[in-house]
């Protein structure tokens, strides 16, 4: 074993697993790994710097495999060394591990001293994604960043918006509650015996606690002090069963017997209290009709009975009835509220306590103080004023201003500023001009139409010039005068021209943002930007014609 900073072993070097291996010597020194083959003629001499080694793997001693050490370098290439025995391999491995550890400290230090913007892998991924999706961006990126006109950071600095938006999209989406009534579950029955089995999942428990605060309160009170969880749920489902039979007499009887069962059978006091408070807080200037359906305590005669029957109920047993509509409304209210707690725990008790806490907080927020009440009353009386009882109001009248349309036309004659000419001079001119005109008319009356009307050469000239005008106009403008010259070019040229334009825009943006030039960095940047090598698209053939 070599001591100090060097290890030297007899090994076989394999470039891949199947390679039989070239025998030689492996010398490991600080910072470097050297493999020299025995055969001087073979060319598998290898020199690897420790900084380039990314990781190492080795075969286990207990397995039947020969002792191999697999080094992967940063480029992904792997070198496999077969040792003579395991202790050799372990020694080398330890040495390399130490060297790697030393190497790792250094890049960390150097990384901190370089640019302060440490790019996370996530950001790099985002950038690659954007480049992949937007081919125009990719072209610009290739053109500028790879030709070293702009650096990566500068390129992306103007595109923060693109990068930012994506990350927002990645934020977690909160999952809401199911709209299906999970709490109204049907048990599975065993055909032979009278047993029914209920399956409880945390989701169901959460729903039950959210919809029925009395049950939640009972759970906190009774479990684990008075009964176990299993007993609690058994009692709860017994109560549910009693509800479903609609036998209020039996329900009343059982409630009288079992105190805890009674809690489940009675109407939910907590809920009733909450609803009453909500009703009190409702602004009466709004439509009250809509709130009737929310009234938990008095919902009786309308709504769908679960089995379509309408039976008469004795008044004292009134409280043991429950209708489908009540359940549906309560469930809907809870679903719309969403998940009010973030606790996802298996433990029922924790869930119950969390829900209670949330409800208490919201209740505390909602409680109105005396001042708030007074203010509310005042606002109500202000808004609900009765018009016919109020004093007559005399609003100041604003008169209609309808302008005389003649003003519009007359104003158009308005002041006219022109090159002034002497009035008299004009008069004379006009008179002369009229005289000339009249002479012309007399002339034509006398002589008739001129003969020949038009000389053939002139006619020919006119024809050719018109033809030329029409054909050139067609080439320049095209059949559609509103078509732009850009549309007349073939697609590839048009794309090139547009890309040229966007790259010029990009360069200009960076150029002008560097002003005023205060540092040498900006100066070099400006110099670079002034003379980029932009390929100018071939437009020459289209200009001629």
């Amino acid at each position, binding site marked *: 074993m070599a001591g100090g900073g060097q290890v030297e072993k007899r090994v076989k070097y394999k470039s891949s697993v199947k390679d039989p291996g070239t025998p030689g010597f492996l010398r490991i020194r600080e910072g470097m790994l050297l493999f020299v083959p025995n055969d001087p003629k073979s060319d598998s001499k290898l020199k690897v710097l420790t900084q380039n080694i990314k990781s190492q793997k080795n075969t286990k001693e207990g397995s039947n495999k020969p002792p191999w050490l697999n080094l992967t370098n940063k480029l992904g290439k792997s070198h496999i060394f077969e040792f003579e025995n395991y202790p050799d391999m372990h020694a080398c491995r330890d040495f390399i591990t130490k060297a790697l550890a030393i190497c790792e400290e250094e890049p960390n230090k150097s990384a901190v001293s370089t640019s302060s913007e440490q790019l996370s892998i996530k950001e790099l991924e985002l950038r690659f994604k954007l480049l992949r999706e937007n081919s125009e961006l990719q072209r610009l990126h290739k053109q500028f960043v790879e030709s070293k006109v702009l650096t990566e950071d500068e390129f992306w600095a103007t595109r923060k918006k693109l990068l930012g938006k994506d990350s927002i999209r990645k934020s977690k989406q909160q999952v809401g509650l199911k709209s299906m009534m999970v709490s109204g579950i049907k048990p599975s029955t065993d055909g032979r015996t009278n047993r029914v089995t209920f399956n409880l999942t945390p989701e169901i428990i959460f729903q039950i606690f959210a919809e029925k605060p009395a049950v939640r309160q009972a759970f906190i009170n009774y479990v684990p002090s008075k009964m176990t969880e299993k007993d609690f749920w058994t009692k709860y489902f017994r109560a549910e069963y009693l509800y479903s039979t609609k036998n209020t007499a039996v329900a009343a009887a059982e409630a009288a017997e079992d105190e805890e069962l009674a809690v489940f059978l009675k109407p939910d006091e907590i809920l009733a209290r909450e609803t009453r408070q909500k009703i009190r807080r409702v602004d009466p200037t709004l439509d009250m009709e809509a709130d009737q359906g929310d009234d938990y305590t008095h919902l009786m005669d309308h709504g769908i009975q679960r089995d379509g029957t309408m039976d008469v109920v004795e008044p004292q047993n009134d409280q043991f009835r429950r209708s489908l509509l009540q359940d549906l409304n309560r469930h809907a209210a809870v679903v719309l509220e969403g998940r009010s707690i973030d606790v996802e725990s298996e433990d029922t008790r924790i869930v119950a306590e969390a829900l209670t806490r949330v409800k208490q907080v919201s209740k505390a927020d909602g409680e109105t103080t005396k001042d708030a009440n007074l203010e509310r009353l005042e606002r109500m009386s202000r808004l609900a004023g009765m018009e016919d009882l109020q004093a007559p109001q005399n609003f100041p009248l604003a008169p209609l*201003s309808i*302008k005389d349309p003649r003003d*519009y036309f007359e*104003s*158009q*004659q*308005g*002041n*006219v*500023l*022109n*090159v*002034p*000419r002497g*009035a008299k001079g*004009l*008069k004379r*001119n*006009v*008179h*002369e*001009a*009229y005289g*000339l*005109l*009249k002479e*012309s*008319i*007399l*002339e*034509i*009356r*006398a*002589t*008739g*139409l*001129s*003969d020949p*009307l*038009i*000389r053939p050469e*002139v*006619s020919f*000239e*006119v*024809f050719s*010039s*018109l033809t030329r*005008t*029409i054909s050139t*106009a*067609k080439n*320049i*403008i095209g059949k559609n*005068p509103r078509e732009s010259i850009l549309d007349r070019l073939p697609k590839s040229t048009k794309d090139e021209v547009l890309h040229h334009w966007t790259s010029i825009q990009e360069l200009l943006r960076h150029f002008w943002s560097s002003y005023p030039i205060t540092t040498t960095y900006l100066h070099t940047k400006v110099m670079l930007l002034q003379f980029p090598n932009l390929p100018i698209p071939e437009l020459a053939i289209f200009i001629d014609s």
Partner: protein
Amino acid sequence: MPAIASKQYSDDVSLLVLLLDTNPLFWSTTSITFSQFLSHVLAFLNAVLGLNQLNQVVVIATGYSSCDYIYDSSLTSNHGNFESNGTGMPAIFGSLLKKLEEFVTKDEELSKEEVSEDRIPSCLLSGSLSMALCYIQRVFRSGHLHPQPRILCLQGSPDGPEQYVAVMNSIFSAQRLMVPIDSCYIGVQNSAFLQQASYITGGVHHTPKQLDGLFQYLTTIFATDLHSRGFVQLPKPIGVDFRASCFCHKKTIDMGYICSVCLSIFCEHHKKCSTCGSVFGQSKLDDASSASDKKRKAPST
């Protein structure tokens, strides 16, 4: 008009309303004389009437201070008992020339009254456009079978910016009626009104370079009826001069202020719009300039 069997009615029956520029101030300054011009125009009208038996032509003279109908080919009183003086003048245009002479005399009388005003020597385009559109409207209401109307504006006088609003209103009415306004400009300067008129209504605008070949221009470009324009290529101008004139001074401007309520154009900042009466708020430019004034004042004191 005698009843026409619908079988005889083809797609290319057209009604041409010609607006003839008789502004004496223009005609005294041109290379071509008015008589030569008239012979080109009259021959052209003959040609149009010859293209289809049912074609109609109406001529409106655009004078310096007034406009009037001079000729209507559908009136039967044109033909017959007119003394042709043994000259080469076709009898069909005898009444046209007579009426033209009367019109010029009347126009002279009118212009004598208002000559004290200084204005650009423009012709009354807005007036003749309105008269043409009224005639066309009457034709539209005459029944199912009517020729397809179009307006041809033969003008050489420059634009009068005081007529901007009226001309634009007529142009928009023509656009509504779907009547194309062709324009042949034989003057020296460019006429923005005519370019805009042709552009908006879908007509043809052309500026002939050789005035002694005017007849050729007229028959090649302006004689095509609306149906044939679907498959005949006519020369198109490359650009259109879209400048407007301001409502306060009637100057032609490219940049100005616009009232956001009624879209009236002003060349300078006003406190109130003169058309609709809405009060303008203070413009941002004013704020900026007053702020910089304050800034400049502070260090100097």
